[in-house]
């Protein structure tokens, strides 16, 4: 596989999740459309947790519901992102490895996006993460190919940051604390699309 790409919606939601919990680690699942050729495009993401990442129960419930969501929308789980609370940690750790391994067992591809905390601000005009992929050799290695972002992604993130929209995103932790909070963030998806169409003018 030579390249992977990430859509505006997926990137924006990832970004908002990080912005909502700047002092904590965060992680989430990345979803893509199943494709016949060997390219992967992340079209949506589900923010998962901002605490206790290694506990199984919440994780099993989340994955099961996300699986069902994928079936309803013709998507597959193809990777996850993780942001460490420690500013200087940029490499995946054992927890990331185990998660990548688990996703690979259940799908064709398993990508692991580790956020680089120095690159989160969209004014950098650089993707805020490094990409690793879990190969058939059972190793998690840096992905050598290209990473494409949809046009207008950084501008959308800047606008969302300006308007303090990060308080609107809900992750699975929020949902378990109050089931009214929608982990699919459907309303927020609409908001993000509205921002996109403004910045396109």
């Amino acid at each position, binding site marked *: 596989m030579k390249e992977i790409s990430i859509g505006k919606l997926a990137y924006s939601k990832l970004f908002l999740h990080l912005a909502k919990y700047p*002092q904590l680690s965060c992680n989430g699942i990345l979803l893509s459309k199943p494709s016949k050729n060997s390219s992967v495009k992340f079209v949506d993401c589900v923010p998962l947790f901002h*605490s*206790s*990442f*290694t*506990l*199984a*129960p*919440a994780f*099993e*419930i989340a994955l*099961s*519901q996300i*699986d*069902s*969501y994928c079936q*309803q929308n013709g998507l597959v789980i193809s990777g996850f992102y993780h942001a460490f609370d*420690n500013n*200087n*940690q940029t490499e995946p750790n*054992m*927890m990331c490895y185990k998660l990548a391994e688990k996703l690979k067992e259940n799908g064709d591809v398993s990508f692991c996006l580790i956020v680089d905390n120095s690159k989160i601000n969209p004014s950098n005009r650089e993707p805020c993460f490094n990409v690793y992929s879990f190969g058939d050799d059972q190793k998690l290695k840096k992905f050598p190919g290209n990473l494409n972002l949809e046009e207008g992604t950084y501008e959308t993130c800047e606008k969302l940051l300006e*308007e*303090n929209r990060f*308080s609107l995103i809900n992750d699975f932790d929020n949902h*378990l*604390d109050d*089931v*009214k909070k*929608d982990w*699919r963030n459907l309303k927020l998806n609409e908001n993000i699309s509205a921002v996109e169409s403004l910045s396109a003018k």
Partner: protein
Amino acid sequence: MSTKNLEKIKNWNDASLQLRNWRDDNVRMSKETLDLWTAYIAPSINRLGDEKWLVYEQVFLAALDCQNFTIAEDCLAALKAQFSSSKRVKKLRAMRYEAKEDYHSALEIYESILEEDETNAHVLKRRLVCLKAQNRINDYVRELNEYLKLFQADHEAWLELCDTYLNEMDFAKAAFCLEELILMYPHNHVYQQRYADIKYTQGQFDLAKTYYLYSLKLNPNNVRSLYGLLLTTANLKSSQKTKEGSDNTKLNLWAREQIEKKYNDVDSDKNLIDSVNSLFQYLTIGKNEK
């Protein structure tokens, strides 16, 4: 200043009240604190009277969090002028070094405070945090354990140690920390539920089920415990063929009904309910299972 939290602030009084609430609740709303400071409080800080020293400290810490060293220096200068020989202000000076990642200088100051007062818990904890910030996790865990020998009732520290062990996937030691917390606070449903989560992760479904039940007895609305009960009873079903097996079935069904009710109460849409139902199908104990 358009975050949801700040929509209700219309004037100086609202702002100072909000800051007081955040101080009392010990919440970390750094960006919002700085917004309120700049917009309302700073221009007329003296209206606060003696409260202003607490506000200076609060804003100083928020400024460090947001790496706004200009505001931080202003606040620190005011505090130093008023309390020139205070250990508390000395600690704040050290925290400014921490914010700049100059741990060497920060630690020098902490050591000098501890020389005069070796049981100053705040400073002992700052010293620990310097280790965590430098990602020296093994040292951090060791020192945190030493700290807890002195301050066994510090529940925050036990929680922190538990979280650290969880990140390192050392579930047995994480469970031990929660056991200490449960002994101290036996009526806290969150500790019971988190303990159950750890037991589940370790594969000890029986024990997990027991603690989810304790948690639900204390708070029947704990959704994580309801889901936990569902998961544990589903995992236990195949290993039991006795009265316990039928008890599991009943608990499984009860958990399912409670969860369904929760989603219906908040008018969840069909797709979300479908997702939850597909989970139930996977985790329900069939009527034929004995």
